């Protein structure tokens, strides 16, 4: 399996970044995930981190090196994250449970599978066109979907915020987890996962456009930058992760991953295994970000070296 991946998370105008992202892979399967811890509830960043860790740990446990049933894996692992959050809140006697959205995608064989809960999204762009976009679990999108399918749409009561989510991990009810796939991947297909910080201020058309026409290592930071610019000083956290399937080997960039090089038992991950590491509040620079910064700098060096006469 061969793919290129690029991820960026920016704090925006918020006091902390409650978004988390990461990916992990074995020789024959890859998991890409993103979670957006919810404000208005305690410890959003813990919720997001836990959801990802549970996904990654389950993946590591079950992908040997392929997942027997990717859709079931997604369903179970996302739900397991939910249970982790409830347990975490109970153990600490929190009055309220930390909550998070999550979107995750598995690439295995020649196919993609994905799941989401809440309003973090997945976009899939093929040949310059948007092929897939997940529907948020918000009242806005629900109404849109109902209207489209010709079903009666409940009339809004005026005090009702339509952007409110009706499900997420950590809420009292059982979360709604939508899964989809398999979708057969074509070389050059691009998948993007993002938090609402991106789609809230950059249109689907602009996201598709950037993803379709620019290398992901340009498109991802540019989209994040655009979102921050559009949202101004009060910008939400913006997190974007993009994967290019079977990226052109000729255009080998430093973030291209070929899993064939991995041994049978090997598991690679950018998702931190322990919560403790994420607990250092001032520590915004995690390992993945350090590696990414170094990569980015070296790419910039290469680019400017090319510009030199």
């Amino acid at each position, binding site marked *: 399996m061969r793919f290129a991946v690029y991820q960026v998370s920016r704090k925006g105008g918020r006091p902390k970044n409650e978004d988390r992202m990461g990916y992990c892979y074995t020789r024959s399967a890859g998991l890409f995930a993103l979670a957006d811890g919810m404000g208005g509830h305690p410890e959003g960043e813990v919720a997001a981190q836990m959801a990802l860790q549970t996904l990654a740990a389950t993946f590591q446990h079950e992908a040997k090196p392929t997942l027997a049933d990717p859709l079931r894996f997604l369903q179970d692992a996302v739900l397991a994250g939910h249970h982790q959050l409830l347990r975490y809140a109970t153990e600490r006697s929190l009055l309220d449970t930390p909550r998070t959205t999550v979107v995750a995608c598995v690439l295995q064989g020649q196919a993609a599978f994905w799941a989401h809960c809440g309003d973090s999204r997945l976009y899939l762009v093929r040949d310059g066109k948007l092929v897939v976009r997940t529907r948020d679990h918000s009242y806005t999108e629900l109404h849109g979907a109902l209207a489209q399918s010709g079903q009666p749409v409940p009339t809004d009561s005026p005090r009702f915020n339509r952007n409110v989510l009706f499900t997420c991990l950590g809420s009292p009810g059982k979360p709604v987890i939508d899964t989809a796939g398999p979708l057969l991947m074509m070389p050059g297909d691009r998948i993007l996962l993002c938090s609402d910080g991106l789609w809230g201020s950059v249109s689907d058309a602009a996201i598709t456009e950037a993803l379709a026409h620019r290398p992901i290592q340009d498109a991802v930071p540019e989209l994040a930058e655009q979102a921050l610019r559009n949202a101004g000083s009060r910008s939400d956290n913006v997190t974007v992760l993009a994967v290019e399937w079977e990226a052109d080997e000729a255009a080998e960039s430093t973030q291209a991953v070929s899993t064939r090089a991995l041994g049978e038992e090997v598991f690679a991950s950018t998702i931190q295994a322990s919560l403790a590491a994420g607990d*250092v*509040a*001032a*520590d*915004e*620079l995690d390992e993945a970000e*350090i*590696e990414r*910064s*170094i990569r*980015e*700098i*070296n790419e*910039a*060096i290469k*680019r*400017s*070296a090319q*510009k*030199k006469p």
Partner: protein
Amino acid sequence: MSKPKPAPLPSGTVVGGYQIVKKLAAGGFGVVYLAEDSDRHSVAIKEYLPASLAERSPGELTPRVKPEKQPLYRLGLKSFFEEGRSLAQISHPSVVSVLNFFRENETVYMVMNYLQGDTLQDFIVTARDLKRDKVFRESTIRSLFDEILRGLRIVHQYKMLHLDIKPANVFITNDNKAVMLDFGAAREVLSKEGNFIRPMYTPGFAAPEMYRRDGTLGPWTDIYAIGACIYACMQGYPPNDAPQRLEKDRLALSLSRLRNVYSDNLIEVTEWCMSLDPLSRPQSVFALQKELSRETERRYTKLSFSERLKLQIESLKTGAKT
């Protein structure tokens, strides 16, 4: 400071495929080494090793950072990245170029062009010791700063400020190119977040807004330093520092000593750059470049009798030499 400085890497150590030849310099932020790449080309390597946060005993490779200092250490690291990121984008002969950036020994390294030559500071000291009436020729000063300003303009275009321009950070290579060194974007962030690294500015070259916590820094801040550098190139010594000037400003007076030696225009430009009020300075490098490159006939105005008298009285009072 009682704490010993972290030990530099011993000569011969190999990091990231480069072999350390010797330590060149050490600052608050880390150590700069002369090293050789695999083709035996010389490079300069800057190691992130903040003296106040990291410890390393002689012979050790990996610095130790106490847990309570981790957040600041990481914050500094972020700034180090910012410096690398900005420099990496800039490809200009007057700005030191970054060749590589890598991680090893649990810290990070920035590989830069190794330049051979001397700093402008060295040149100023040598020239002033010759005790001629001029430290540098005016044409030399103009062409030198024309080169530096071209580089600085690009730096500002990348939304970066140098914030520590001084003759010691301007390098004159053996083939006569001026190159700016030691980019201080890092310094800015650090001084904002916690004043844990020694002076963030060099007296004499730092604009008054650098001394204030709430001071708005901008291109004008670097322009002040450029003015101070031109001053040093004419006078042989750095100007009074900004707090002194705020108390009693002798800049105009000391510049008047240079009248008839340097053109009125160059003296006026220097004074303009060094205005205490940021808004009174040239607001962009471009504005300054335009003024400096204006090729009109140079006017020289001699001191009048009363001005000479004033100067003499001033020197008697302060005991300074004229």
